[in-house]
C-alpha cells in the first residue's frame, strides 16, 4: 500500500524534472543565503560579546553555516539528477546512488529544521545573556582608563545610537550607576561631596544620561542632565516628554533585532528544502518504472513512500537494530522455538 500516490504521464514527468531542476537551483541560492546568514549572525554576536554573557549562543549560527553548506551540495546533486532524469540512458547511473542520497538529504533537512527550532528556543537564553551583559557594560562605562574595559564606553554609545535605545531595561538604569569617572569630578566642590555622601557606596549618582541616549527626532535640544527636575529646564515636564531621549531599553531592542533576523530566513528556506525533497522523491519513483521499458513515454505512478509511514519506519529501523545487536536475544528465542517445534 503506497503512501501519497500520484500518476505521472510523460509530459508531467518532463515538467516535474524541469521544475525540479529550477527549484534545486533556487534551493542552492537558499542554501547560500543560509550560509551567509549564519556567518553574518556569528559576526554580529562576536561584535556584541561584551554585552553578552556566555558563548552557548554560538551553536545557532554554527548549525546554520553547516546546514547551508550541506544544502548547497545536496541541491547541486539534485539538479544534476534532474538533468539526467529525462534521458533514460543516463538515469540508471544514479539508480544505486538515489536511496542513500535521499536519506542524507532528509538528515540535513532535519538539521536545518533543528537549527530553526534552536534559534527559537535560544531566545530566552539570549535574553538572559543580554541582561547580565548589559548590566556589566553599564557599570564599566566610566572605566575608560582600565585596560580591558576601555572600549565599553564607545561600545555602549554606538549601541545606543544605532539601536535607538537607552540603558538596560530603560533609561532609569543610568540613574543607578556611576557613569562619570572620578577623574572628571571636582572633589573640592560642595555639590560633588554631597552627592557622594548621599549614598552608601560613595558613588556619584545623578539623574542624567549619556549623550548617546539623545533622540535626534526630538523637537528641542537634548536634555540629558537633571531629567527628573522639571524646574531646571524651561517648558519641560518629565512625565509627558517622550521624544527627548530614547525610551526603549537596549535589551529589548537587541532581542527584537536578533529575533527578526532569525525569523526572516529560517521558515522560507525550510519550506523550499521540503518542496525540493518531495519533488525529487516523486521524480525518482516515477522514473524507476520507466527504466527497462521500450516505450519511454508511458504513464507511470510516483509515490513518496512504498509502504505506509509506520511500516517504512520499521523497515528502516530493522537494519539499525540488527547492527546494535538488539535483536540478538529475540533471534535466539525464535531459534529455540523452531528447534522445539519439529519434535
Amino acid at each position, binding site marked *: 500500500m503506497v503512501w501519497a500516490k500520484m500518476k505521472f504521464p510523460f509530459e508531467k514527468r518532463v515538467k516535474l524534472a524541469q521544475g525540479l531542476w529550477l527549484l534545486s537551483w533556487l534551493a542552492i541560492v537558499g542554501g547560500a543565503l543560509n550560509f551567509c546568514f549564519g556567518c553574518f549572525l556569528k559576526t554580529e554576536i562576536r561584535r556584541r560579546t561584551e554585552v553578552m554573557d556566555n558563548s552557548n549562543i554560538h551553536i545557532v549560527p554554527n548549525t546554520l553555516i553547516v546546514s547551508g553548506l550541506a544544502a548547497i551540495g545536496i541541491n547541486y546533486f539534485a539538479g544534476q539528477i534532474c538533468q539526467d532524469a529525462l534521458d533514460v540512458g543516463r538515469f540508471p547511473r544514479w539508480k544505486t546512488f538515489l536511496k542513500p542520497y535521499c536519506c542524507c538529504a532528509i538528515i540535513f533537512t532535519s538539521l536545518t529544521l533543528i537549527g530553526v527550532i534552536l534559534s527559537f528556543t535560544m531566545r530566552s537564553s539570549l535574553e538572559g545573556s543580554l541582561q547580565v551583559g548589559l548590566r556589566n557594560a553599564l557599570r564599566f562605562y566610566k572605566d575608560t582608563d582600565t585596560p580591558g574595559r576601555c572600549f565599553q564606553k564607545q561600545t555602549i554609545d554606538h549601541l545606543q545610537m544605532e539601536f535607538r535605545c537607552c540603558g538596560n531595561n530603560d533609561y532609569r538604569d543610568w540613574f543607578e550607576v556611576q557613569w562619570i569617572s572620578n577623574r572628571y569630578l571636582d572633589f573640592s566642590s560642595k555639590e560633588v561631596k554631597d552627592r557622594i555622601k548621599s549614598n552608601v557606596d560613595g558613588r556619584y549618582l545623578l539623574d542624567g544620561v549619556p549623550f*548617546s541616549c539623545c533622540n*535626534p527626532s526630538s523637537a528641542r535640544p537634548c536634555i540629558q542632565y537633571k531629567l527628573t527636575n522639571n524646574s531646571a529646564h524651561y517648558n519641560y515636564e518629565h512625565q509627558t516628554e517622550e521624544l527627548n531621549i530614547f525610551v526603549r531599553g537596549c535589551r529589548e531592542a537587541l532581542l527584537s533585532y536578533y529575533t527578526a533576523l532569525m525569523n526572516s530566513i529560517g521558515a522560507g528556506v525550510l519550506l523550499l528544502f521540503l518542496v525540493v525533497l518531495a519533488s525529487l522523491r516523486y521524480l525518482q519513483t516515477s522514473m524507476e518504472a520507466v527504466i527497462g521499458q521500450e516505450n519511454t513515454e508511458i504513464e507511470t505512478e510516483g509515490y513518496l513512500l512504498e509502504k505506509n509511514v509506520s511500516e517504512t519506519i520499521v523497515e528502516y529501523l530493522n537494519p539499525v537494530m540488527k547492527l546494535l545487536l538488539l535483536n540478538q536475544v529475540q533471534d535466539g528465542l525464535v531459534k529455540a522455538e523452531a528447534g522445539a517445534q519439529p519434535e
Partner: protein
Amino acid sequence: MAVLRVKFTKGQRDKLAQMLWLLNWVSVMTGIILFSLGLFVKVEFSKKEELMADRDFQPVLNLLIAVGLIACIINLLGGKICYDCVDTNKFLRWKLLILPYIICSFFFTGCMLVGALMCYSMQEELQESLAEGLRDVMRYYKDTDSPGRCFLKHTMDLLQIQFQCCGNRDHRDWFHIQWISNRYLDMSKREVVDRLHSNVEGKYLLDSVPFSCCNTNSPRPCIQYQITNNSAHFNYDYLTEDLNLWKRGCHQALVEYYTKLMHSTGSTGLLIWLFELSILTGVRYLQTAMENVLRQGDPESESDGWLLENSLVETARNNFNILKNLDSTA
C-alpha cells in the same frame, strides 16, 4: 588601402564569433553593473537633497542609468548576432542590419564616454551646493515648528552622527547661529535677556554645540555647553582637548564622500567604455570578414577583415559625396 587589415581562416572566424558571443554576455553583466551603480548614486543624492542647495545633478545621473540600460540591450543584440555569425546562412539574415548596428553602437559608446567624463567634472558645483545647503540647514536647525523645516534638525543630527562631523567648516559655526529655539528660552531669566541684548540681531548665541557633535571616542562624558570656558569643567582645557567633539566639518566630510562616489562611478564607466569599444572592434572585423567570405563564394576559404575599406580620408570623402548626392537629388 584598407585600415588595419587582418586575414581570417574559417577556424579563426568561428573562434572570433564564439569569443565575441561570450564577451557580449559579459558586457550585459557590466551594463547591469553600470545601471545599478547609477541607481545607487541617484538614491544617495536624493537621500541628502535637503543639504544640496538648488543645483541640478539629475541629468548626469539619469544619463548614467540610461547608458547602463541601453548597454544591456545593445549587447544582448550583439550576442545574438555573433552567435549566428558562425553559420553563413544565418549571417545572411543579419547582413543588412549589422552595419547600422555597429554605427549606432559606436555613437552610443561616445555617449558612455561623455557620461563617465561628466562624473569627474561635478566636483566644484558639488562643493558650492553643499556649502550653501549646509549653511541653510544649520540656520533652520531650531525651526522644528515651521512646516517644511521641521525635519531639518533630525537631518542635521543624523548627518553629524553618521559622517562624524560638526558644523559647516568646524564646530565654531555653531557659535554664530542661534540653534536653540525661543520656545525653550526662559525670557524672564536675566542671563537669557543679557545674551539676547549682547548682539545686534537679538540672537541667543552660545559657545555650545548640539549633542550630535559629541565624539564617541572621547574617554570622558561629552562637554557640549560652555566649550571655551575652561573653568566651567574640571580638568578641562579647550585648546588641548581633541577627542571631545568631532573635529572635521560636515562640508569637507560630504564633499569627500560624494567625490569618491562620483570618481569611482566615472572610473567604472571608463573601464566599461574601453571594454565596449574592444567588443565593437571585434564585431566590425567579424562583419567585414563574413561579408568578404560571401563575396568570394566559398564559405570555407580565408578572408580579410578590416576596420575601414579605404583609408580614413577617402572614407570621409566618399561619405561626404554620398550625403551631397542625397542632398542634390532631394
